[in-house]
């Protein structure tokens, strides 16, 4: 079987679990979306920046090639007189064009025509240039003095030597100062850098002298990637520089993405936790508000169940319509139940009275008949004194019996009644027994149920003293014990066995009201009238006698 849970904990648990899942779901969604967008935007921006840097390089090479084209055009002109003119043009050109450091011109037989410096050109470059004469060739060479690479541009050209058109090869040494000024102004963050590599992955130019990331470039060849260098996240952009076979690599620091992501994560976690806490507190409050009155209802019901005292619920301070209406319904129900119970009690009481009446009425006819018979006998035998005594006793007996229809009479009246009865019976049984009254003074005014003693005395005469040879003796006692009045009717008959006593007791509780002897009648009346507060006990000893003991409360409750 499933464990039953309290409603408040069920509400609290279910909503809490739902909320925690909801918050985690939403916040991880936000985190993923924002961090992805952030990364995407940053990388896109960095690519744009890198493209811009690349554009500067492209412009640089464009300018370089245009300048060399222009120089070529100038020397391919009939206004040239001799090689000296060409040298002069070259010298002028390196002053005009920032991109150009040196210019050298050879003819097709490796013969120097003109130069601005005394640099020797590698012959393999010469051959390469002649291999494809339709384009510019790019060369790079490490300079051990400058500890840097030099870049050269070469092309087969036509020139005028003062007398004839001639083919030759022009070499132009590049000046990277321009690029330097471009890259110096670009902020790429810590470890960020720009470098230019040739087709053999030689670093021709770098903005960072300690460059050792060539393997990343070798692997990437072209495109975008991210890498970690010196614990720094770097974005790498590697692309061709148009008009040249060389490539540009831009390393941009993207630690900011990860920092921002971490911050976002921390903020989100903090927000989510506080949200969860706040809502949990709110839910707890709400569930308490809903279930507290219910709990109170429940405990009151329990109390009612245990004590059978009908309480009203008040001070359930709930502003919830359902709860307050539930409470008022409950109160009404309790009221209703109380009314119903009262009604039942009144009805029971009425029924009891009618039962009592009928029980009391059961006793008279035989006795009256026998007594009157005795009086007639006495009168016939002229025992007039006894006739008088008996008649007076009978009249007294009936006066008390009737008592104007009351059930409760003063104890002294009950004693008087018993005495009258004994007077009558003693005359009837011709002094076959004797009797004694021992009534304490302080119980005389106590109230008692009428016709209590008489049946017990009757019982003692018929059952206790009958068939005796020696005279019997009956003792009637009345005294106060605690808050009770106690009657004792004792005879000196044969007594009863314990089994007989138990049998008698068992007949007391028999439902049939009409089959009993006098003692049962008394017992039942006592129970009807006093509930369990009154009692009847049989105490007997064989050959010694029997005592019937009745206990009646003095102050009986008003019912």
């Amino acid at each position: 079987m499933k464990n039953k849970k309290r409603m408040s904990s069920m509400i609290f648990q279910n909503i809490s679990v739902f909320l925690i899942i909801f918050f985690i779901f939403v916040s991880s969604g936000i985190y993923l979306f924002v961090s992805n967008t952030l990364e995407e935007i940053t990388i896109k921006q960095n690519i744009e920046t890198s493209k811009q840097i690349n554009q500067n390089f492209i412009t640089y090479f464009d300018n370089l090639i245009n300048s060399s084209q222009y120089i070529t055009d100038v020397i391919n002109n009939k206004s040239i007189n001799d090689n000296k003119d060409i040298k002069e043009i070259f010298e002028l050109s390196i002053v005009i064009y920032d991109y150009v450091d040196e210019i050298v011109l050879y003819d097709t037989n490796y013969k120097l025509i003109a130069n601005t410096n005394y640099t020797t050109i590698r012959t393999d470059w010469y051959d390469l240039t002649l291999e494809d004469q339709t384009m510019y060739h790019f060369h790079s060479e490490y300079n051990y003095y400058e500890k840097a690479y030099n870049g050269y541009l070469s092309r087969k050209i036509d020139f005028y030597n003062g007398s004839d058109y001639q083919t030759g090869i022009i070499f132009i040494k590049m000046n990277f100062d321009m690029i330097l000024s471009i890259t110096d102004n670009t902020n790429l963050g810590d470890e960020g850098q720009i470098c230019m590599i040739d087709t053999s992955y030689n670093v021709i130019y770098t903005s960072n002298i300690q460059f050792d990331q060539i393997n990343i470039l070798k692997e990437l060849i072209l495109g975008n990637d991210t890498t970690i260098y010196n614990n720094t996240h770097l974005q790498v952009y590697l692309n061709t520089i148009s008009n040249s076979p060389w490539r540009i690599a831009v390393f941009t620091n993207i630690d900011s993405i990860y920092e921002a992501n971490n911050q976002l994560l921390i903020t989100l976690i903090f927000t989510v936790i506080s949200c969860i806490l706040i809502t949990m507190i709110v839910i707890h409050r709400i569930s308490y508000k809903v279930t507290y009155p219910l709990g109170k209802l429940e405990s009151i019901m329990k109390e009612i169940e245990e004590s059978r005292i009908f309480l009203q619920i008040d001070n359930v301070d709930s502003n919830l319509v359902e709860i307050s209406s539930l409470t008022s319904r409950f109160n009404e129900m309790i009221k209703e139940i109380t009314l119903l119970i009262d009604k039942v009690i009144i009805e029971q009481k009425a029924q009891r009275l009618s039962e009592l009446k009928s029980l009391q009425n059961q006793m008279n006819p035989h006795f009256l008949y026998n007594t009157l018979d005795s009086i007639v006998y006495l009168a016939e035998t002229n025992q007039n004194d006894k006739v008088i005594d008996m008649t007076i006793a009978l009249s007294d007996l009936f006066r008390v019996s009737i008592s104007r229809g009351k059930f409760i009479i003063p104890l002294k009246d009950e004693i008087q009644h018993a005495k009258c009865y004994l007077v009558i019976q003693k005359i009837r049984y011709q002094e076959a027994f004797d009797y004694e009254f021992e009534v304490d003074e302080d119980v005389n005014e106590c109230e008692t149920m009428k016709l209590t003693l008489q049946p017990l005395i009757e019982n003692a005469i018929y059952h206790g003293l009958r068939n005796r040879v020696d005279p019997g003796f009956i003792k009637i006692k009345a005294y106060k014990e605690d808050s009770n009045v106690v009657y004792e009717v004792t005879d000196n008959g044969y007594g009863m066995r314990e089994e007989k006593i138990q049998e008698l007791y068992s007949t007391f509780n028999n439902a049939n009201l009409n089959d009993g002897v006098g003692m049962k009648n008394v017992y039942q009346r006592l129970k009807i009238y006093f509930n369990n507060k009154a009692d009847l006990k049989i105490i007997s000893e064989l050959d010694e006698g029997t005592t019937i003991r009745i206990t009646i409360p003095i102050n009986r409750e008003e019912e």
Partner: protein
Amino acid sequence: MKKILIILILINIVLLSGCRKDEKNIVVLMYDETDMFINDLSNTIKKELNIKYNVELYDCKNNQLTENEIILNTIQDTDMYIINLVDRVSANSIIKKIQSNNIPIIFYNREPNKSDITLLEDSYYVGGDSFKDGILQADMVHELYLQNSYNVDKNGDNIIDVLLIKGEKYHQDAEKRTTASIDRLKELGYEVNILDHVYCNWQYTLGYNAAKKAYQEYPNIEVVLSNNDEMAVGVIDYFKEVGHFEEEYTNTIPPTIVIGVDGTTSGLNEINKGTLYATVLNNIETQTNVIVELVDNIFNDIKIDNTFSYTITNDRYIYIDGKVIKKN
């Protein structure tokens, strides 16, 4: 229900993977769709290859960075690249990148360096034979001269005044065609006076502008040697506009001999009118056939050697001869 779903998914996977196996993905890159000849050539290549393969054609908008980007974006699921380079010198990086993914490349129209193309085993170049184009251009001038020297040398000074309309700087075809034609004329014994040489990037408008500039300086241009038809038509249109040319020459020779290359629709139209004297057909059909055969052979692992239908120069280069087209 679940079983049916799983079976359906499995069938799908099998079908899809099956499809992929059969359909090879080919990416064709053209440097600039506004270049009419390239546009025509590229679309023909696409059309022919599309019969057997899955072909995507991209325009690189005359920007090498765009071309690089397209390659980087497609490199994961491409089985073959057919590339018209924007910048010939960028071939080195591109080949290296594509080589790292073991994808064969066929270059067309723009020729990469020999040292670059040999980096990759399966890489070839298909293009027109620009030297021959130039020589044919010069031969046509020679032929006309032989008919009557005044057809060419209008002022009779025994010097041929030539205006050179060149395609694009560093384009092997532009440089080779021009050099070859001038060298050929000189070889044939003519004295050539180059009035001007102008780079017009293969474009009609720039050809028109170049003609305008040159005509204002030199009104008696005898020969215009253009690297392609588009620019030649631009020159002709300018000549017509200033009245140097008539609308049509049915039986006469125009005052300036204009010769182009390619054989585009507009070029052939002018040939019919007689305004464009001749053109050297850059054979789109044949070049496409070569490319299709190369693609088939590479995909079917057939060695490309002497058995190949076309002559292969230096193991990698296939040059297709041009063809002279004149009126009638």
